[in-house]
């Protein structure tokens, strides 16, 4: 009697192949040309030893303090190689001109980088104020939800980031952002936005816009630490978030925002 050869039934074969399918897909995607060529993204790569689970970042903007100098928007463009041409902005400053009656007039020439020209309209000006804008780093981010490949994500330290080596450039995230905070980078052809200067904050530095602000309009820090200035700002600053009704749960808090700010 000859020893029985171990044989593989067709069903077993298909079954084992099916179970290995995820592994194949993993290898296929791992060896894709992009991944082989992809360099580690220095803009978002945290330094060794950095533990993202121990952080939860947030930003505060005190509208009463902003003088509209636009240094923040300029510093951001320098720091993050944002194209200089209008209109690509990770952050910008809006001017609200309030007449005695009726709607405010809003403008942001070149994002406020070159300052604001004198208002030459026909309405009487009762008061003006400036509102810096940026990505709100929403906890419930619509841009993250719609990304078809998961290239944009909320990091464990609460920052919304884009993996530019993975983004397909479909621009659905740009459409889904209620704050107009995203743009398609003309060189990389991928979505780009504020990262809270992730390369800086993971080293314990402040975002460039916060660093250069001459009036401390922008406050940055750990939302969960009582010793952090942002914690105090959030608790005592009489703050609001933009478009709260959309349930995006922004992590950029505004103090002194009038109802016309949106």
């Amino acid at each position, binding site marked *: 009697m000859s020893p029985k050869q171990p044989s593989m039934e067709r069903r077993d074969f298909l079954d084992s192949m099916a179970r290995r399918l995820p592994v194949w897909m993993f290898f296929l*995607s791992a060896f894709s040309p992009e991944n082989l060529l992809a360099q580690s993204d220095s803009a978002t790569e945290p330094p060794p030893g950095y533990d993202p689970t121990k952080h939860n970042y947030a930003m505060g903007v005190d509208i009463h303090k902003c003088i509209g100098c636009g240094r923040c928007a300029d510093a951001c463009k320098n720091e993050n190689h944002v194209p200089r041409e209008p209109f690509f902005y990770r952050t910008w400053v809006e001017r609200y001109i309030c007449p005695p009656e009726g709607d405010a007039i809003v403008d942001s020439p070149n994002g406020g980088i070159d300052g604001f020209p004198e208002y030459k309209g026909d309405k009487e000006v009762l008061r003006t104020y400036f509102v810096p804008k940026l990505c709100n780093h929403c906890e419930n981010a619509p841009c993250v939800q719609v990304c*078809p490949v998961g290239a944009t994500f909320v990091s464990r330290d609460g920052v919304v980031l884009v993996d530019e080596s993975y983004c397909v450039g479909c621009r659905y995230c740009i459409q889904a952002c209620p*704050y107009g905070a995203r743009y398609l980078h003309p060189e990389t052809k991928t979505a780009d936005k504020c990262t809270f200067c992730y390369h800086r904050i993971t080293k314990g530095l402040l975002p460039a816009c916060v660093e250069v602000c001459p009036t401390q309009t922008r406050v940055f820090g750990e939302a969960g630490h009582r010793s952090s200035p942002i914690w105090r700002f959030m608790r005592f600053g009489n703050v609001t978030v933009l478009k709260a009704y959309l349930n995006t749960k922004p992590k950029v808090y505004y103090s002194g925002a009038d109802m016309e700010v949106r």
Partner: protein
Amino acid sequence: MDLHAVTQAAAEMPHVTGYMYPNEAELHWSILIVIYPYLTGLVAGAFILASLERVFNVRVLQPVYRLSLLTALSFLLIAPLPLLAHLGKPERSYEMFLTPHSESAMAMFGFVYAWYLMVVLLLEIWFDYRRNFIEWSKTKKAALTRLMYKVLSLGTTDVSEKALKFDDKVGRIITIIGIPSAFLLHGYVGFIFGSVKANPWWSSVLMPIVFLFSAIVSGIAMVLLIYMVTSMFRVKEISMPCLNRLAELLFYALIVDFSLELLDFIQRLYESEESIHILSDMISSRLFISLIVTQIMLGTLLPIFSIAMARFGRFPDEMKRVTYLFAALLVQLGIFSTRWNVVIGGQLFSKSLRGLTTYKLDVFGLEGILVSGVLLITPFIILAVLSRILPPWMESGHRAST
């Protein structure tokens, strides 16, 4: 960049009235994204028309059954191209299949598309033509043609009554699966827009349903057009009962579609949310021609009235045919305008609800008129080739004509 250069660059930017967030001044989804829902709508509409004959036994529509299927296939083959051409990184598009983000509406496109193409359309067409493939693989003159049909028959040779009955049964089952699939394909495209809560022009629970009915309208009108034009070139008599039924269906679909859009409009007006002012401004300025004139008046009301008169009035057949042709052409203009108004309109106003921008359509370039024209014409070329290989004409051996 100095102030002068910035001012100059700003002058070259689209004409903005009021205030747009700076990143919004240029539109992100161009005419290519207008073409995409237009094409998928035609696919879904043509397929639903075909399924009427197959599943609901509307025998009078037999002359256009196969034509509808081939029309759906021709448009489906081109439908993903505008999407692909529009991606910033088209070479990475396969990532949507390999690592789809399960929460993303867009990530499902590839799967819905593949399901519809592979499981529904190709299978249905194959089962419907199988008997003909076998027949043609024996009777055609050129050896190469015979070989082609042999390959298309996938080696099957059984044309016994039992086998043909099986083909018919499977065809019916596939169509039954196909109807919800067609609803899924286009309803889903509507969901891509309707689910964007940041955009008050898009965000509406009715969006998938409105998309679906406008798809049915465009599909019926397109098949009607193709049937009339091909009959003319083939010097064959048009089946008037079929044409009348097509016109009737188009009429009913138009009424439902228009009612839904009206409902959406009234709801928005009545709710009168924060966005109502800027949306009214947009409709009365930027979208006046494409919404009020071409979509509603020329593309919906005029076809409704003209079909009603021709179909239910005492028109001679010749006059009816001319009216139907005219109405179907207007419907295509209307549905294209609908897609335009959704996609482009949704980006013309600022999410700050304070301003309007403009969309400048280029002639050349990937997102220009020329490429768009090619994308819109290619399905007809594919259909012409397909109808040579798979003659859809009733007299060429339809299962029911024997």
